[in-house]
Each structure stands twice: as structure tokens, then as C-alpha cells.
């Protein structure tokens, strides 16, 4: 008899403890599952490029809104359009859910030789209104990419054509123009929808 009462008490006690644990857990902030959040927000290097309208685009252009920044080139038939399509879907889902921190999509061309503002403009618009395309002098581009740890290098694919190897990461820039997090490939819509609200909530 004593044993039975003891067991019941034990059972009730553990149920209470489990309940308390769950209640506390739901109160703690959620963790990102795919993104890498930088321990300290990084300042952007000084650079001077142009956007798809030919207007100046420098570090100040990243102030005032959240940005998802991807480095790619428009003559890329597979990875770049696939990534931009993913980011466009993320944006659409955030807009539909009424999120207040919907980021812009910024494509920085690692092929300024072929990616003129006109070409970039048609390209980024194809993936949604409000997207930004950035191009300019190679030296200024290197200034930005090397400061962010972004790699790119031209490679020959066939005689008349060439490709550009480039970092596949998408950077998250906060409204102060600081580099706060990054997503590594492969890019999945669900990961962004899970992680972005956690990242933006920390701001």
C-alpha cells in the first residue's frame, strides 16, 4: 500500500516537473536552424558601386531596411536563378503573413563586365518588383566582397563563353547596414521562414 502511494506521488511529481519544463521552454527564445548568426554585427567595408538604375550604391544604401544579399551573375542558368527564385518565394510568404521586416533582395553581380545596369534591371525585375541589382567597377566590387569574405573567380566554360565561380551564401544585413547573419547553400524557403523572424527579432 505504501509503495503504491509512493509510485502515484512519483508519477504526479514527474508529470508536474515535465509540465514546468515545457512551460519554461516555450518561454525561451527560439533558435535558428540553418542561418549562422554572427557573434557581433559586422560593419560593411567602404565601397562605391551602382544599382540597376545607374544610381550610386554604397554602404549607406543598406541602411533603413533588412536586406538579403546574394552574389551572382545573370549569365548563370542554374544556381543563380534557382536562388533568386527561392528568395522571391521567401519574400512573398513574408508579405502574405504580414511580417513587418520583409527584406529586399539584393543581387550583387560578380560579372560587372557583362552585367550592365540595363541587363541587371531586367534580370532582377523578373524575380519581383523592388529587387535591387548592383554592379560597377571590378576594383570597387573586390573592395566589398573581400571585406565580407565573399569569393569569386572567372572560369572558362567554352571559348565564347565564361562562368564565374562565386560564394553561394546569402548575407543578412540589418537596417543599420550591419552584416548580422548568413545563410549557406542549399537555400530552402522553409529555413528562411523559420530563421528570419528570429534574426529580425534580435534587432
Amino acid at each position: 500500500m505504501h509503495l503504491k502511494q509512493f509510485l502515484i506521488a512519483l508519477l504526479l511529481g514527474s508529470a508536474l516537473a515535465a509540465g514546468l519544463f515545457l512551460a519554461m521552454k516555450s518561454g525561451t527564445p527560439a533558435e535558428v536552424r540553418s542561418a549562422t548568426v554572427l557573434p557581433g554585427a559586422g560593419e560593411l567595408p567602404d565601397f562605391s558601386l551602382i544599382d540597376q538604375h545607374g544610381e550610386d550604391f554604397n554602404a549607406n544604401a543598406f541602411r533603413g531596411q533588412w536586406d538579403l544579399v546574394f552574389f551572382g551573375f545573370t549569365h548563370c542558368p542554374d544556381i543563380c536563378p534557382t536562388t533568386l527564385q527561392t528568395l522571391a518565394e521567401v519574400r512573398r510568404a513574408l508579405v502574405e503573413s504580414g511580417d513587418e521586416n520583409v527584406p529586399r533582395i539584393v543581387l550583387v553581380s560578380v560579372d560587372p563586365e557583362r552585367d550592365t545596369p540595363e541587363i541587371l534591371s531586367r534580370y532582377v525585375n523578373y524575380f519581383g518588383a523592388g529587387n535591387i541589382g548592383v554592379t560597377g567597377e571590378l576594383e570597387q566590387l573586390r573592395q566589398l566582397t573581400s571585406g565580407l569574405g565573399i569569393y569569386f573567380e572567372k572560369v572558362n566554360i567554352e571559348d565564347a563563353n565564361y562562368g564565374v565561380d562565386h560564394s553561394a551564401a546569402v548575407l543578412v544585413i540589418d537596417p543599420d547596414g550591419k552584416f548580422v547573419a548568413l545563410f549557406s547553400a542549399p537555400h530552402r524557403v522553409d529555413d528562411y521562414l523559420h530563421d528570419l523572424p528570429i534574426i529580425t527579432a534580435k534587432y
Partner: protein
Amino acid sequence: MRYLLIAATLLLALAACETESLPPLVAADVIVTEPVPGHRMSAAYLSLSNNSRNAIRINRVSSPNFGAVELHESSVEDGVAKMRPVEELVIAPNSKVALQPGGLHLMLMRPNADIDEVSLNFYQDTTLLLSVDTKITRRSN
């Protein structure tokens, strides 16, 4: 004797049906993306099944709708996205190879004006192995 002949004919017909219903190389899930405005290239994705007992080698793909077609492979190595030409696609007996975004794909260059339907022809050297017809997939944004 007459019955025997009929039976033999039926058997032959059945055998013919069987080989016809299972060609050695079969394509599925064919997607040809539309060229982005201002760009003279797009990509094709599909899966290729080898139903035969021999390996199938594809080393040339052509299309009447594009100036050039190349077999490419994209990959991400140490965080860097790359795309390289692939000389030959070998599909082992009774197996399937998927060409999909971020991996193997056909790069289609210099499209004809206003393409809607696309034909893709897969060859080993000069032997035509398979022809696939599909409509261009429009991206909806």
C-alpha cells in the same frame, strides 16, 4: 498446324509489344525554364531511366530550338558555387539519373525567337537515343 501458326504469331506480337512498352531510355519530369528577359540561355531538367541491361552513354544533346546545348554540372564546394561542363553522362543498367537545379542540367544557349515548344535530342556520338518534346515552363512571380 494452323493453330500453331496463329499461336506463334500471337507470341511474336506479344513479344513486340513488350519491347515497345519498355524502351531502353525513358525521360520523365522534363522542365525547360524560359530564358530570363534579355538573356539568351536557359536550363533543362529531367530524369533519365535506363531500362536496358547495358550502360547508356550520352555525349551529345541538341535542340532545333537552341543554337547550342551543353551538359553541365553545378555544385557547391566549400561554400563556392561552380558550374562545369560534363563530357559524358553514363547511366548504369536499370538505373536512373536526375538532372535537377543545383546539380546536373542541360544548359540551353542562343534560343530561337519566341520559343514555346522545345525538342531535345540525346545522342551517343551520332546515334539518336531519345527525343523529348516539352513546353517551356514560365516562372510565375
